[in-house]
């Protein structure tokens, strides 16, 4: 059994064992879906932007994948705090393997979370256009997950304790979320905002999901979304591995 597999399995087991957390983590997206979907829906429609639920569902899916993957990457901090990190760092295996195992595990968890939210969206009335849309959505979820799990590892490698966590949350994760166009159509963004949103990897992820799910107000081409995510994912994975490589305990 390989090192990558066992560390992947560890992440998945830990996730499946935290049932309360899984249920709690569904609450937030559900709230967004209900409040925004049903609250803003009529306004959105009147403005000629189509059905808001169809529009916002991919945003909520992207959001849950973002949060779940970046937290799993930052889980490094918990492992440092509770000491398990040392156990992996002194083992006769390359840091690359450890990092990849963790990142894939975290990504898997994030994708499971994304699938759960997709299900919730469908229950709330969201309708994918055709069966082919589901595997394509899945593909975009995987890419979003890898991008942000790697980013989480890259950041987590540099943090010594939980102090920095709130900082990362407020000045990185929330902006990534709000600037991604999860909640508003990017094509209406103007001026500086337009350029800032273009630098947000999540924007391409959510846009990709919108494309394949046939949601209204798609901003870019799905192929562009795919290429950008692939490139950013590769860079972040390498960046994360490099940062992880430099950890001292």
């Amino acid at each position, binding site marked *: 059994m390989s090192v990558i597999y066992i560390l992947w399995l560890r992440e998945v087991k830990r996730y499946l064992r935290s049932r309360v957390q899984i249920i709690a983590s569904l609450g937030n997206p559900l709230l967004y879906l209900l409040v925004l979907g049903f609250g803003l829906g009529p306004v959105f429609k009147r403005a000629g932007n189509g059905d808001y639920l169809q529009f916002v569902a991919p945003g909520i899916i992207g959001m849950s994948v973002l949060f779940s993957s970046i937290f799993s990457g930052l889980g490094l901090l918990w492992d440092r705090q509770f000491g398990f990190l040392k156990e992996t760092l002194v083992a*006769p295996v390359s840091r690359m393997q450890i990092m990849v195992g963790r990142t894939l595990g975290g990504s898997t968890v994030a994708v499971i979370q994304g699938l759960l939210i997709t299900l919730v969206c469908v229950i709330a009335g969201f309708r994918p256009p055709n069966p082919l849309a589901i595997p394509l959505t899945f593909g975009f979820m995987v890419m979003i997950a890898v991008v942000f799990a790697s980013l989480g590892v890259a950041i987590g490698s540099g943090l010594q304790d939980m102090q920095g966590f709130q900082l990362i949350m407020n000045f990185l994760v929330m902006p990534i979320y709000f600037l991604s166009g999860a909640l508003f159509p990017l094509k209406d963004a103007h001026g500086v905002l337009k350029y800032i949103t273009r630098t947000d990897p999540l924007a391409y992820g959510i846009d990709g999901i919108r494309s394949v799910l046939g949601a209204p107000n798609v901003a870019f081409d799905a192929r562009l979304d795919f290429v950008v995510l692939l490139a950013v994912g590769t860079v972040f994975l390498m960046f994360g591995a490099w940062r992880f490589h430099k950890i001292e305990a």
Partner: protein
Amino acid sequence: MIRVQNLVKTFGTLNAVNDVSFEVAEGEIFAFLGPNGAGKTTTIKMLTTLLKPTSGKIQLDGLDPQVQRNEARKRFGIVFQDPSLDGDLTASENMEIHGVLYHVPHKLRRQRTEELLKQFELWDRRNDQVKKFSGGMKRRLEIARGFLHTPRILFLDEPTLGLDPQSRNQLWTHIKKVNEAERVTVFLTTHYMDEADRVAHRIGVIDHGKLVAQGTPAAIKEQTGTTTLEDAFLALTGSTIREESASSADQMRQFAKMWSGGKR
């Protein structure tokens, strides 16, 4: 087996380990003693590739742990001073991960896990999550895990921390057994002087990052003119009756302490 030359580690302006040199022969049990903050854990971290030395040379079984990292890592097992288990996983799962990380073949992994968990009286609880264990049980699991891949060198950083006398006794018996039967080299730290006196072939005493004495327990006692290792330790590290007979170095330290707001 372990060779350390002029090892230095500085954190900012603090010399946590300051020009330390020693050797530990194969099959030897070496106790590394010193007061809190003396630099024991920092030394172990450098020996086990967790920290980069500021300067100095280290050899483990002829290997440089900074260069031939994974080769060196295969040779040692370590029980950390601080917790290092995954609390969400079970005892077996923690062992399993360790076995895979150290490339222990599947069958052998199973067999040794069973042996060790039985030995440390954790077999009945093997499928319980570790976070539900008592402090002593966690400690025993960490120790059992350290033995899993049959290391040639064992680093034990206060292994008996939080263990009851029964478990302590059993642990040292086990360590002596593997030391004698398999010639495993043991590098340990402890604050229980009687343990060190009983199990160690040789002792190194470190204080404020400097190695202040080295030798067999008997030699150290003789050198300090004391009858117990505890007295020898106190004589060497100068914390007894510091008020009355403080050396000039001790006085300097006291001053430094006052001026730095008691940080050291």
